[in-house]
C-alpha cells in the first residue's frame, strides 16, 4: 500500500489504507489493520470482513450482502474527503493553489504550520517526494501524535516530519535558511512572519498564508511588507460543482405555424405542445462561497 504510484500493489494487502467507495456521496477511509481490534467495515450494503478483502483487486467491485462497493487506492484528494476531522480542513481548490503558488515539486523542502488535520500535508508530501521533505508543526500535541501515526501507516515517514511546537514563539526550531517554501495556516499568521523569513533559504523562497477573515489578511500583508517580502498577492479560489442532467421542457408550438390547421381542428389536437429534451449542467442553488483568503509572497535575497 502506498500513496505513491511506484510502490502500489494491484490488490489489497494487510496494513493498507483503502478508500471504500459506497456511492456518490459516501466514501470511507479504512486502515486494514488485522492486529487491531476492528475486523470488519460496516456499510449500508452490509459488513465487509477484513479477511475477505485481502487480495481483492483495487478498482473492481466488491460484492456485499445487499449491493456492492468499490475499493480504491488512496490519494491525498480522497484522503481529504474521507479523513477523520480534527480541525477545519483545507479543500481541493485551496490545496491545489497552494502547491502551485509555492512552486512545489519533487525535491522541495517545505515548512507547514499548523498541521491541523493533515489534509494539506498529504498533498505536499505527495508533491515533494521522493527526495524533498515536509516539516510540519502544530501547537496542539494530540493532533501531532495522531498525525505521526498516520504518516507511518500511510508510508510517508521518509518525506514528512511532524513536530509539536509553537511557531509563534519558537519559530521553525533548528530550520534556519533551509526551506524553499512555507505555508501558514494559523489564527495569527503575522506572528509567524519573522520566523518564516529566517527559516526560508537565503537565496529566496515562497510564502503562503491561509486566513478566513480579511482582517487577518490585512495584518499579515502589512507584516510581510515590513519584512521585505515582495510580489504580495491575495486571492480567493473556489470550485463550482455542476450537476449534469438531461432535462425535458414543454415547447409551445404556435398553431399558425402548423401546415394544416383545419386538420388539426378536425382531429381535435388541442394541445399545441411538444416535448424537448436537452443535456445541461445545473449550478446548484447553494454552492460554497468562501473558504478563506490565500496570500502569497516571494522573498528574494
Amino acid at each position, binding site marked *: 500500500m502506498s500513496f505513491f504510484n511506484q510502490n502500489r500493489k494491484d490488490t489489497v494487502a494487510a496494513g493498507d489504507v483503502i478508500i471504500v467507495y459506497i456511492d456518490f456521496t459516501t466514501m470511507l477511509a479504512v486502515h486494514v489493520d488485522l492486529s487491531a481490534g476492528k475486523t470488519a467495515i460496516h456499510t449500508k450494503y452490509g459488513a465487509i470482513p477484513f479477511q475477505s478483502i485481502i487480495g481483492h483487486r483495487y478498482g473492481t467491485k466488491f460484492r456485499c450482502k445487499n449491493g456492492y462497493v468499490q475499493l480504491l487506492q488512496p490519494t491525498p484528494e480522497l484522503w481529504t474527503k474521507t479523513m477523520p476531522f480534527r480541525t477545519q480542513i483545507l479543500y481541493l481548490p485551496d490545496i491545489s493553489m497552494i502547491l502551485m503558488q509555492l512552486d512545489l515539486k519533487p525535491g522541495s523542502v517545505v515548512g507547514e504550520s499548523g498541521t491541523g488535520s493533515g489534509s494539506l500535508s498529504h498533498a505536499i508530501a505527495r508533491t515533494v517526494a521522493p527526495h524533498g521533505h515536509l516539516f510540519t508543526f502544530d501547537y496542539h500535541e494530540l493532533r501531532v501524535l495522531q498525525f505521526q501515526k498516520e504518516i507511518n501507516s500511510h508510508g510517508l515517514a521518509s518525506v514528512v516530519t511532524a513536530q509539536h511546537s509553537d511557531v509563534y514563539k519558537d519559530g521553525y526550531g533548528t530550520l534556519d535558511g533551509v526551506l524553499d517554501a512555507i505555508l501558514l495556516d494559523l489564527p495569527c499568521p503575522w506572528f509567524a512572519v519573522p520566523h518564516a523569513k529566517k527559516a526560508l533559504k537565503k537565496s529566496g523562497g515562497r510564502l503562503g498564508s491561509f486566513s478566513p477573515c480579511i482582517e487577518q489578511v490585512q495584518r499579515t500583508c502589512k507584516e510581510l511588507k515590513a519584512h521585505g517580502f515582495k510580489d*504580495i498577492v491575495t486571492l480567493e479560489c473556489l470550485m463550482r460543482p455542476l450537476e449534469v442532467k438531461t432535462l425535458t421542457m414543454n415547447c409551445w408550438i404556435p398553431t399558425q405555424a402548423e401546415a394544416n390547421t383545419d386538420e388539426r381542428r378536425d382531429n381535435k389536437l388541442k394541445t399545441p405542445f411538444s416535448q424537448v429534451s436537452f443535456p445541461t449542467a445545473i449550478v446548484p442553488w447553494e454552492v460554497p462561497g468562501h473558504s478563506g483568503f490565500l496570500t502569497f509572497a516571494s522573498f528574494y535575497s
Partner: protein
Amino acid sequence: MDADTFDANIIKDSDRVIFQRKDWSKDGIVGHGKSLVISKLKTKTDDIVGLAYGTLVEWNKHAGKFERVEEGELEDDDFTADVEDGETGGDNRNLVDNSTAQSLTTGEITAMKAQGVKGKEIIDSLVQNSLTFETRQEYAKEKYIQKKKDKHVFRFRILRPTLRLVCEVYGCGKPQRINYLRLDTLAIMLSNSNIHAGSNVMVVDGVQGLLLAAAMERMGGRGKIVHVHPGPQPIIPAYEVFGFPEEWTRSIYHLSIDNLEVISPTVEILQNGVEPLEISEPPVKRRKLNDAQQESARFIKNHLMDSLMIASKHHPKTILLFLLPFLGLSRNFVVHSSFREPLVETFQAVRSSGRAVRVCLNETWLRLYQVLPSRTHPENNMSGSGGYLLSGTTVEKDSSFSDGASNETARNFD
C-alpha cells in the same frame, strides 16, 4: 542543461528566464548577443548573465544595457502611505483636468532618458514639476507615482521559470494559445490527476506543451510521460521555456493524435523493413510509423497509465473514451475545456461507459484582491472563466452499464 545545474541560483549564458513586471511578464533567453524586445524596446541581455535569480534590473537606454537596481528603491509594492481611517490628506476639490499641471514636457523626459537618467530620478522630477501633486490625497499620490512608473521605468525582476510564472506569461499576453487554461484550473488538474514523481502519465496537450511541462515539473524527470499532441510534430513552446534537463526530456514519449489509433489492441504496428506475418487471427489493421512514434505506441501498449490529463482543442468525448482502458484501475483522469457543452456530453458518455466512479463536472472561480490599509477590495477586473473540469476515477468496466443505459433521471423543468 543538465540536471545538476538545473536548480542553480546564478543566471548563466543561454538560460531561459522570466522578465517580471507588476501584472506583466515575458520569457526570454539571456546571454551574449541575445536581444529581446520588451514593451517595444529592443534590449541586450548580456549583462543579466552572472546575476542571481530574483535580481531587479532596469534598462538604461543611454548605456544600452540592463543595470542592477537595489531592493527598496522605488518598488512596485512600495506603498508608503499608512493613514488612519478617514484622514486621507487632501482631496480633489481643486483639481481641474486641463493638462497644465505637469510642466515637464515629453521632449524633456525623452532627453533625460537618452542621457541615462535613472527611473527614480525621472519620477522625482515629474513629482517636483507637478503643480497638483501636493494637493492630492495620499492614495492618489501613490497612484500617480505608480502610473508614471509604469510609463517611464523599465524595471524587471529576473526569475527562473516555474509553472506559476509561465502560466502568468501566457495568461497576461496570449491566453487563447493555451485554451484559456487558467493557473488555478491547471493547479486543480494536477491535484485531481494525482501526478507525482515515479508515475506513468499521459497528457493530451493542445496547449503549447504547458500540460506536458506541468507534468514534468511535478515528476522531476522520474517516471514516464506519454505526450499526445495535435499535428505530426510536437510543438511545445511552453515546455521549452522551462529549460528542463535533457535527460528528463528523454522520459517523454511523443505520439501524434493522428496516430492515436495504433495503440488499439486490434492494430499491429509494422516494424520498418520487416514483412508482416501472413496469418493473424482475428484480422488486424496494420500501420506504418516512424521510429519515435513506434516506440511511443509500444510503450503505451505495454504499460498501464497512472494519470491522464486532457486539455485540447479536440472534442474530448471520443478521446477520453478511447484512452480510459489504457489507465490502470483506481487511477485518476481530468479533462479541461473552456466550453461547458462538450464536457456535459463527455460526462454522460463516461458515466454510461461504466468505467469510472466519482465523475464530476466543475467550474473554477478565481478572484484577486487589493490589500492596502483602509483600502482593501476585490480587484476591479477579474477573470471571467477559467474553464470547466471533468474528473473521475477508473474502475473495472461495469457490464450492467451497457452503452446507452444511464442512471440519470430526466427531470421535468416547467
